[in-house]
C-alpha cells in the first residue's frame, strides 16, 4: 500500500489536466516562498515610488501600495508568511490529530470516549472566534499564530483519523498483530498508519486550505501577522483604502490567496479515485 502510493506512475497516469495545472500553481507558490528574498525586484520595506496606490507599470509590475512600496516584492515575501505559517500550523494539527486519533481507535475504552467528547466540545467553538479570543489574551506573534491554528484544526483531524482508524482496527491483520502481542505503538505505526495515509494526506490538503483562509481572515482583522511584516491577508487589510480606486495593491494579494487555495482544492478534487473516494 505504502509503496503503491509513493509510486509516481500510479499517481501520474490518473492525474487529469486540471490536477496538473493545480499542482503547478502550488509548486510555483512554494518556489516563490522559498526563494523570496533572492528574487524580489525591489527591497520589500523600501518606499520606491513617490505616488501611492500606483498602477501596474513595467517598473512596478503589480503597482505600488499605500506607502509607495513595490507590491510584487511584498506579495513574494508575503507568500513566505502565508505558506510558512499555514504549513507549520497544518503539520502541527495533523500530527497531533492523527496520532491521537489512531491511538484512541487502538486503545478504545474510556480513553477514547473522554478524548472524543472533549475534542468534540472543543470543536464547537467557531474557529475565527477562537482565534480572536486567544490573540486578545496572549497577543499576536508568529509562534502564537502557529500554535493557535494548530489547536483549532487538531480536533477535526482527530475525528477524521479516528473514524478511519476504527475501520482499519477491525481488520483481521490487526487482530492477528494484537494476538501476537504487539504494543500500541507498533499497531499504530505498522498496521494502522500505512492503511490510512492516503485519505489522511487528502485531509491534510483540505485542512491546509482552511488554515490559509483562517490566517488570512485573522490578518485581515488586524490580529494575524503584525506590521511591518505582512502576509497576504495583512496586505489586503493595509491597502483596503485603495479599494474605491480599484488599486492593484488590493486586488493582487486577493488573487494570490485565491490562486493558492483554489489550486489545493482542485488538486484534491482531482486526486486518483481510490485515494479520494476513501477520503470522503
Amino acid at each position, binding site marked *: 500500500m505504502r509503496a503503491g502510493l509513493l509510486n509516481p506512475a500510479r499517481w501520474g497516469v490518473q492525474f487529469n489536466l486540471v490536477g496538473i495545472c493545480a499542482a503547478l500553481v502550488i509548486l510555483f507558490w512554494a518556489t516563490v516562498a522559498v526563494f523570496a528574498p533572492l528574487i524580489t525586484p525591489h527591497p520589500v520595506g523600501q518606499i520606491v515610488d513617490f505616488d501611492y496606490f500606483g498602477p501596474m507599470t513595467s517598473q512596478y509590475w503589480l503597482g505600488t501600495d499605500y506607502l509607495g512600496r513595490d507590491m510584487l516584492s511584498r506579495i513574494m515575501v508575503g507568500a513566505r508568511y502565508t505558506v510558512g505559517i499555514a504549513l507549520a500550523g497544518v503539520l502541527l494539527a495533523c500530527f497531533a490529530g492523527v496520532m491521537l486519533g489512531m491511538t484512541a481507535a487502538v486503545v478504545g475504552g474510556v480513553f477514547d470516549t473522554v478524548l472524543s467528547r472533549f475534542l468534540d466540545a472543543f470543536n464547537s467553538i467557531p474557529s475565527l472566534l477562537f482565534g*480572536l*479570543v486567544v490573540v486578545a489574551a*496572549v497577543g499576536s506573534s508568529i509562534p502564537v499564530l502557529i500554535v493557535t491554528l494548530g489547536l483549532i484544526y487538531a480536533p477535526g483531524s482527530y475525528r477524521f483519523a479516528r473514524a478511519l482508524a476504527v475501520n482499519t482496527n477491525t481488520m483481521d491483520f490487526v487482530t492477528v498483530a494484537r494476538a501476537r502481542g504487539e504494543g500500541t505503538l507498533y499497531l499504530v505505526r505498522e498496521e494502522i498508519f500505512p492503511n490510512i495515509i492516503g485519505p489522511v494526506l487528502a485531509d491534510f490538503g483540505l485542512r491546509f486550505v482552511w488554515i490559509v483562509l483562517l490566517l488570512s*481572515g485573522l490578518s485581515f*482583522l488586524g490580529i494575524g501577522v503584525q506590521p511591518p511584516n505582512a502576509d497576504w491577508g495583512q496586505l489586503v487589510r493595509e491597502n483596503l483604502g485603495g*479599494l474605491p480606486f480599484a488599486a492593484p495593491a488590493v486586488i493582487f494579494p486577493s488573487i494570490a490567496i*485565491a490562486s493558492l*487555495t483554489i489550486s489545493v482544492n482542485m488538486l484534491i478534487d482531482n486526486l486518483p479515485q481510490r485515494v479520494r473516494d476513501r477520503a470522503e
Partner: protein
Amino acid sequence: MTGGVACVPRPTGLSASAPGRWTTVLNRQIAVLLLRRLGITLISLVIVSFAVFFATELLPGDVAQILLGQAATPEAVAGLRTAMGLDEPAIIRFVKWMGGLAVGDMGTSYVNNTPIAELIGNRLGNSLRLAGVATALSVPLALTLGITTAMYRRSLYDRVISVLTISIVSVPEFMLATGAVLIFAVYLQWVPALSMASDVASIGDLLRTFALPVGILTLAVSVQMIRMTRAAVIDTLSTPYVEMALLKGASMPRAVLKHALPNAIGPIANAIALSLSYLIGGVIIMETVFNYPGVAKLMVDAVSTRDLPLIQSCAIIFCFSYLFLVTLADVAGILSNPRLRH
C-alpha cells in the same frame, strides 16, 4: 441494512397500522437519542465556557497592572486587584462569572466602565437580523441547488455549480466582500461603498446598505451547504433501494424526493449545522468590512483595546448561539429520521 431501509419511507397511512409495541420501542429510542444529544450540548456548554474563561487567564502578566500601565504604584495595583476580585482563586471567579451570565449580568467593560449587557443589548438585534436573514435565504437556496445538482449529476448544470461552489469555498469571506464592493459599488455604483448603517433614511437606503452584507453572507454560508447536501443525496442515490425505485420506472424527481430524500435528511441537517459555523465567522468579517454596528464589530474592537470581559461575553454569546443552532439541526435530524419515526 439498506435492505431494511428500503421499505421504510412509505406513506404514513400504512405505518399507522404497525403494531403498537414497536411504536413505543422506537419512540423510546428517539427519546434516548434526544436526551443523549442534549446531554452532549450541556457538556459542550460547560467545556466551551471553561475554555473561553481560561483563555484570558493565559494573559502574561497581571490584568490590573496592564490596565493601570507602567507608572502605577504597587498600592494602586493591589487596590484594583481587590476591587476586581482578582485575588480570589480562578475557579471561584469562574463560578461567579457563570452565575452572573445565567442571570444576564456580564460584568463591566474595562475600557469605558459601562455594563456589558448594555453595550451588547444595543447591538445584538443588528447581528441577529444579519445572521437571521442570511440563514433564511441560504437554507432554501442551498437545499434546492444541492438536491437538483445531485439529481442531474454530471450534467453541465452540475459542473457549473460545482466549479462555482468550489471556487467560492476556497476564498476567504473578506475577499468575497471586497470583490463585491469593487463590482457593485466601484464599477456599477449601485450601492454605496463601505456603507454606514447610521445614515439610513428610507427603505430604499436600508435595502441598499443591507444588500451587500446579507448577499455575501448568504453566498458564503450556502456554498458549503450546497456541496454537502449534494454529497449526501448522491450517497443515498447510490443505495440499492433507490436503484430499485428507478428500475421500477420511477422518474428521477420522484426517486429523489420520495425515496432518497427522507433518508438523506440526517446528513443534510448535519451539513446545515456545520455550515452555520461559517455563519459566525462570516458575521464577524461582514460587520468589520461593512462597518456594521453589531456584536462582532464590538468584539473585534474590544480585541484591539484588550477589553477582556467584553471579549469573553461576546465570545460566549457567539458560542452559545452556535451550539444552540447545531443542537437544533441535530434534533431536527433525529426527529425526521424515517428509521425512527413510526
